[in-house]
C-alpha cells in the first residue's frame, strides 16, 4: 500500500511537534554533574591536590550511600570531573570553557582570584552557578549572581592577621612584601586600612614578581628598616623561598605573618622546618580547633590520603555536601540551585555557610601559629553577614 505524499509530510510534522512539546533532548539528568576547577599544574598546584581530594572524599561518601535523593523521590549519583585551571588566568579561562562544555549543574572553583576574575563572565553567560574559592574581595563584587565563594574575602582575612600581630605579638614596625598578582595585591590593599585601625604604618613595602628566585634586595631593605614583623603575601613557592632566604640573611628573629598559601604543607619543606617555626597565618579551618567534627574530618582525610591537610584548601568537602543538600531540596534546575545558594544557611562539617548579598558563604576564621611541628589556634573571629 502506498502512502500519499502529503500524509508522509504530515506525520513528520506531527512527530517533530510532539518531540518539541515533550522537551526533546531535555531529559532529566542521569547524574548530578559537578565540574571542579582547581590548579593541578603551575605555581599554585601545591594546594590544588587538597581541594580535589577533599571534594572527591565528599563525592565518594555521598555516592556510597546511593547518591542524592531528589524531591520527586528519585536518587541520583554525583558525576564529578576535575578540570585543571593551571596557575594563570589564561588557563582558568580555558579550564572554565572546558568545565562548561561538560554541562555541569554546578561548577566548583576556580581557586585563584585572577582566574575567577578572568573567567566569571563565562559561567554567567552559561547560567551555571559557581562555588568559587579565591580571597580577593573583588571576585564577588562583579555583580555576577552566579558567583559564590567558599572563602573569606581578603577584606576580612587581613584585619584578623593585623589584630593578631598587635594583640598577641605587640608588633609596632611591620614591613610588607607581596607578589604582583591579583591574590597578593588584594591582601596588600586590605593591609593598609587594617594597620591604620591599629595606628600602624608599614616601615617599608616591597614587591616581587611571581617566579622570582632571589629576594635578597627586598629582604635586606626590610632588615635595614628595623621592621619587627614581615607581612608576606604570595603563592606557595615564593612564600617558601622568601621564608628560607629570611633566615639565610640573618632575619629569623623577625616573625612572618602570612595567609592561606603559607599553610600548605609543602611550604614547610621549601622553607625548611626550622625556618618555618613561628609562622602565623590566617585560615578558615585550623587543625588546632578542638571541634570534634573537624578533628574527625582531619583524621579521616589524613588516613585516606596519607598526607597532612592544608588548612584552608579542604573546604570544598563542604561545597559538595552543599550541592547535594540543595539538589535534594530543589532538584536539578540550575536557576533554582542558584536561588538556593543565594539564600544559603547551612551547617557544614568544617564551617557554617551563610550567603551574604555578594555571594560570600564563609564568615568565620582564625589565626594559627606553627609551633613545635603543629598548628596552634591563636584567635578566632566571626564577621557579620550583610544581607
Amino acid at each position, binding site marked *: 500500500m502506498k502512502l500519499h505524499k502529503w500524509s508522509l509530510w504530515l506525520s513528520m510534522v506531527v512527530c517533530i511537534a510532539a518531540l518539541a512539546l515533550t522537551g526533546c533532548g531535555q531529559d532529566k539528568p542521569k547524574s548530578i554533574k559537578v565540574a571542579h576547577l582547581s590548579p*593541578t*599544574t*603551575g*605555581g599554585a*598546584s*601545591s594546594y*590544588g*591536590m587538597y581541594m580535589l581530594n577533599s571534594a572527591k572524599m565528599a563525592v565518594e561518601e555521598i555516592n556510597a550511600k546511593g547518591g542524592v535523593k531528589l524531591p520527586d523521590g528519585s536518587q541520583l549519583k554525583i558525576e564529578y570531573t576535575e578540570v585543571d585551571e593551571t596557575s594563570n588566568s589564561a588557563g582558568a579561562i580555558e579550564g572554565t570553557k572546558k568545565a562548561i562544555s561538560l554541562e555541569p549543574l554546578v561548577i566548583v572553583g576556580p581557586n585563584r582570584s585572577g582566574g575567577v576574575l578572568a573567567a566569571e563572565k563565562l559561567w554567567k553567560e552559561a547560567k551555571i552557578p559557581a562555588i568559587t574559592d579565591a580571597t580577593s574581595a573583588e571576585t564577588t563584587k562583579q555583580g555576577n549572581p552566579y558567583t559564590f565563594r567558599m572563602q573569606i574575602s581578603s577584606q576580612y582575612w587581613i584585619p584578623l592577621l593585623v589584630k593578631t600581630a598587635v594583640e598577641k605579638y605587640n608588633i609596632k614596625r611591620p614591613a610588607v612584601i607581596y607578589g*604582583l598578582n591579583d591574590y597578593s595585591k588584594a591582601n596588600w590593599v586590605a593591609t593598609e586600612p587594617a594597620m591604620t585601625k591599629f595606628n600602624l604604618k608599614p616601615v617599608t613595602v*616591597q*614587591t*616581587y*614578581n611571581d*617566579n*622570582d*628566585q*632571589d*629576594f*635578597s*634586595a*627586598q629582604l*635586606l*631593605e626590610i632588615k*635595614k628598616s628595623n621592621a619587627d614583623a614581615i607581612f608576606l603575601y604570595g603563592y*606557595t*613557592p615564593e612564600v*617558601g*623561598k622568601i621564608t*628560607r632566604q629570611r*633566615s*639565610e*640573611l*640573618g632575619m629569623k628573629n623577625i616573625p612572618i605573618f602570612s595567609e592561606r598559601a603559607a599553610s600548605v604543607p*609543602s611550604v614547610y*619543606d*621549601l622553607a*625548611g622546618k*626550622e*625556618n618555618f617555626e613561628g609562622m602565623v597565618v590566617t585560615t578558615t579551618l585550623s587543625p588546632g580547633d578542638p571541634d570534634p567534627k573537624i578533628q574527625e574530618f582531619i583524621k579521616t582525610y589524613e588516613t585516606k590520603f596519607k598526607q597532612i591537610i592544608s588548612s584552608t584548601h579542604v573546604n570544598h568537602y563542604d561545597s559538595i555536601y552543599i550541592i547535594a543538600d540543595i539538589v535534594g531540596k530543589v532538584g536539578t534546575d540550575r536557576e533554582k540551585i542558584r536561588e538556593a545558594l543565594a539564600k544559603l544557611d547551612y551547617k557544614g562539617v568544617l564551617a557554617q555557610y551563610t550567603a551574604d548579598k555578594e555571594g560570600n558563604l564563609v564568615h568565620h576564621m582564625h589565626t594559627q601559629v606553627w609551633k613545635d611541628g603543629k598548628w596552634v589556634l591563636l584567635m578566632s573571629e566571626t564577621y557579620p553577614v550583610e544581607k
Partner: protein
Amino acid sequence: MGFENLLQILIQGLNMGLIYALAALGISLIWSASGLFNFAQGDLMTVGGYVMLSTFAHWALPYPLAFALTVGIMGLAGYLLSRGYFFPMFSQGLHPDIIVIGTVSLTVLLHNSILLVWGPHAQRFGPPLGDAPIHIGRIIIMPYYVYNIVIVVALVALLQLFLKKTIIGIAMRAVAQRQVTASLMGVRVDQLVALTFLLATGLAAFAGVLIAPIIPLIPEMGGLVSLKAFAAVLIGGLGSFAGALVGGVIVGIAEVVFATVAVPTYKDVFIFAILVVFLLFRPRGIFSAEISEKV
C-alpha cells in the same frame, strides 16, 4: 647603601650568577659543537635536579654517590638523546635553525615527563653542607655559596683542560670549528656531537643538583632559569666558556644590584635591556668568540 650591605648584595648576586652560568655553559657547549641553540638545556637541568631528588632524598643514597649517579644517568640520557632524537635530524641535512624547533618540542616533552613522574608540586632537598649560615662580621654566607663556587670553578677548569689537552677534546673542538674538514681528517662527527651532548647534559645535571637546594624544584624551573642563561650566553659571548661564566655572573649581580637600588619588580626588564644593548653594539658579547676560539 653601606659597604656591608653592598658586599652582601654582591654575594647574593654572585650566587644567582653562578646558577645562570652553569646553565649557560651547557648552552654554549652544544652551540659550539653543533651550531644548535638548545632551548631544552634548562629543562634538562631541571630533570637533573629531579633525578637527584630521587637518588638522594627518596632513595637515601649518600650525597656523593647520588650526585655521581645523577650525572651519569643524565650524561647517558644526553648521549641517547643525541643519537636517537637529534642525529636523525642532522643526518637528513636539516638546517640547525629548524632543529631548534626540535629542542623547543623537547622542552614540552621533558616538562610533561616531569609532571608525570614527580608531580607538579615544589620540592627541595637540602644542600650537602647544611643550611646553617656562616657569619663573617655582619656578612652572612650560606655554605652552599662556597660549595657552588668551588664546584663551578673546578668544573670550568676541568672542561677547559679536557677540551684543550685531550685527543677527544681536541677532536670536539675540531668538529666545533669545521665539521666537514674534521670529517675529512677522519673524525667521527656523529660520535663527537653525541659526546658533546653527553657532556652538556652532564653539565645540566651538575647545574640541577647545585641549584635545587637554592631554587625549589618545580617543573617550570628550567624555563625560568634558562631565559637568564640565554641572556648570559649572549652577553658573555656565544661559544665561549669564559663568556658563559662571566655573562652569568654579570646577569646575577646586575639583577640583584638593580633590584636593590631601583625597583625589584623591573629587574628582568633591566637584564633584557642590557641584552638588547649588547645585541645592538656588541653582538658577539664580551668575549667575542671567533670561530677559531670556539669552546
